[in-house]
């Protein structure tokens, strides 16, 4: 199965939120949508900030012309070149390797980005599937952290070639 990532524009978010058009830029939505409105709104806000500074950084995860999830940076890379990534797959499209391939695609972009030296991620301790995504992509566990909102988190890191 092929999975690609497509830079998400604001009009893409409008479509994902409203879903008025069935097909938008040749893409469809999965049954049940991608996620809760609140999450889409949240990611849309992040995307707008990234676009201002970076032009890119939020992507739709696409397979067979369907948007099966979202992924991207949480913030622009820090001055030291650290960037944290996140990813999310539609409930109806989980467990097919989409997240693993999407993260690989982000890493390929980060490798060639002189502003990025290290890619970071955090996963809830109970989310084994998410941890496997990072393991498969060569991330190393670097520690743990507990967060009031997210609970116990495992922290991950991988260095890029330019790092």
């Amino acid at each position, binding site marked *: 199965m092929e999975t*690609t*990532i*497509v*830079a998400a*524009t604001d009009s*893409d978010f409008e479509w994902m939120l409203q879903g008025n058009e069935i097909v938008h*830029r*040749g*893409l469809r939505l999965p049954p049940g949508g991608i996620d809760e409105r609140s999450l889409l709104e949240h990611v849309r806000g992040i995307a707008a900030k990234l676009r201002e500074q*970076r*032009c*890119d950084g939020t992507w*739709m995860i*696409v397979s067979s012309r369907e948007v099966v999830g979202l992924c991207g940076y949480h913030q622009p890379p820090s001055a030291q070149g650290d960037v944290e990534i996140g990813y999310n797959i539609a409930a109806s499209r989980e467990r097919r390797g989409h997240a693993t391939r999407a993260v690989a695609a982000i890493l390929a*972009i980060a*490798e*060639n*980005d*002189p502003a990025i030296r290290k890619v970071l991620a955090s996963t809830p301790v109970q989310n084994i599937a998410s941890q496997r995504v990072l393991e498969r992509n060569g991330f190393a566990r670097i520690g743990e952290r507990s967060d009031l909102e997210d609970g116990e988190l495992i922290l991950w890191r991988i260095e890029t070639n330019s790092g």
Partner: protein
Amino acid sequence: MERWFPIETPRLLLREIQAEDEDDVHEYASDPCVSRFDVWGPNTREKTREVIARWLKVHEEWPRDETNLAVELRHEKKRIGSVRLHVKDRENVSAYIGYVFNRDYWNQGYATEAARALIDSAFKALNLHRIWATCDTRNVASWRVMEKLGMRREAHFIKDVFQKGAWRDSYLYAILADDWLRAAPPSELA
């Protein structure tokens, strides 16, 4: 036929690309912002090398249909972008142009200055009838340049280009030699 470049403008030198331009080219070709509205990019170092090698190969021929010129800031000797003219249709004496610039040098009129010089030289030296260009409709900075040059928006294509994973709309802008030479008579530019 005589070579119609290098071309000098008040701030810029448009000259043939060289292998030594690689670092400067890669600086903008690897920037995701620069190629955001293009089918290509962002480039890996290998890709940039490959593209330059292809240009150098094309440039072994003379006369040639495809010309890629490095845009150099005259006072800094920095290569800040490139412009291209491609004679696509000899029968109708038509060519398309394209340009790309390092993000650190945007919004200072360099693209307009370079493209104006390119169009002017091409109309005069190659006896072209028409020059056209296309861009992503969201690429406002790009089509503003075309409007400043007096090019006319002749078409809005709907979802005509599959770009970076999805379909995009394009504008087509064009200008005819008659219009160009009337608006900017040779004496004025000499």
